[in-house]
């Protein structure tokens, strides 16, 4: 009699513990169906090529990005921006400026023929495969998607700013309207519909190109083979997937 009760408690306890994985399994079955059939995540892996020698600093990408993604226009919030480098011959440190992130272009500020090397570098989230920013999120509100974009779950973000500090490239900001984090999501709403990103669409010179690393027909494979490619801050081993062609050593 008494041992029966003990057995009951033990069995009931075991059953209770088992309900957790069972529930998780059921949930997985349910939500797995929610994926849009037209777009198959497993068939894509997104990245970008930035060809520094082609960038003319027109600012089209910065403006297009703000329009497409409703980024606040105040010049402190950017999902993408453009920097101007000015490196005097033999200089140890470059002069870098980015007036309004390049939103209104770059008014000429250096004297013509001063002998310095000068160029533009577009910047955006590097869509890292081992991103430091997603690792610090305490609630799982930012993550690397299976198709290679680093996304934010706005409905779940606490606005704690850990990820803003963790990103070594300064690609994140707190949206003053929602008090949640925002960043380049590689126009996830566009690329999953077969469009390119807003910045690539409006880039006049092809200095930035969205690439699908899982598509064997994507010209990216030839491009990566034929050019000397660099990512930003390779020493951090972030697995950055924005590949820069013609990147100068002065760029950090």
């Amino acid at each position, binding site marked *: 009699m008494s041992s029966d009760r003990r057995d009951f408690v033990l069995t009931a306890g075991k059953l209770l513990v088992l309900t957790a994985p069972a529930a998780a399994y059921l949930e997985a079955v349910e939500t797995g169906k929610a994926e849009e059939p037209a777009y198959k995540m497993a068939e894509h892996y997104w990245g970008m090529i930035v060809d520094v020698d082609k960038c003319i600093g027109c600012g089209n990408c910065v403006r297009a990005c703000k329009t497409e993604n409703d980024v606040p226009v105040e010049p402190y919030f950017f999902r993408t921006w453009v920097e101007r480098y000015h490196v005097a011959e033999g200089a140890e440190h470059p002069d870098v400026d980015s007036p309004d992130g390049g939103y209104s272009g770059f008014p*000429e500020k250096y004297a013509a023929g001063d002998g310095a090397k000068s160029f533009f570098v577009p910047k955006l989230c590097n869509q890292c495969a081992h991103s430091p920013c997603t690792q610090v999120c305490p609630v799982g509100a930012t993550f690397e998607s299976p198709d290679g974009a680093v996304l934010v779950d706005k409905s779940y973000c606490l606005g704690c700013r850990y990820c803003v500090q963790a990103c070594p490239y300064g690609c994140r900001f707190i949206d003053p309207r929602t008090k949640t984090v925002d960043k380049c999501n590689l126009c996830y709403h566009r690329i999953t519909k077969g469009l390119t990103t807003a910045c690539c669409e*409006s880039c006049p010179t092809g200095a930035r190109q969205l690439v699908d690393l899982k598509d064997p027909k994507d010209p990216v494979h030839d491009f990566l083979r034929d050019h000397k490619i660099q990512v930003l801050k390779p020493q951090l081993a972030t697995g950055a997937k924005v590949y820069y062609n013609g990147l100068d050593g002065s760029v950090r």
Partner: protein
Amino acid sequence: MNRFLKDKEHLVRMAALFAVGVVLFLILKAVLVPKGFGVYGHYRAGALADNRVRAPRFAGRSACIECHTDERDAWKGGKHAGVGCEACHGALAKHAEDPSASNAFKPDPKTICFTCHLTNAAKPRKFPQIDPKNHFDGGACNGCHSPHAPDKEPKK
């Protein structure tokens, strides 16, 4: 045997307390962990769909040239063939969806060209740049160059 079960009361109470704890934990977990968490990783699977719902504001050049065939024919063979329509005309997805409901923006041919062609030391040297002071000053650019198919040797 009996000696061990003699004071079993407190064991049962502890087991019951433990069971209540487990149930409480499971209830809390069910309430607090959002649906779909952990399907693909340590995040809500629904967040992927949330990131997809936005409607695009740039239609893309392939949409424009479906209707504007005259501009397409001029543009395709010209020096601006690599420049998307919306690089000059701005985001026009609304117009592309329903042209009668939303007018398209027509850029000012006197100023739009400077976004790209104004001289700047940081621009790649091979990119065609002009200084308006030394380039047929005053004349609207489209008086000599067509915006859709500009020519280096424009017909006057």
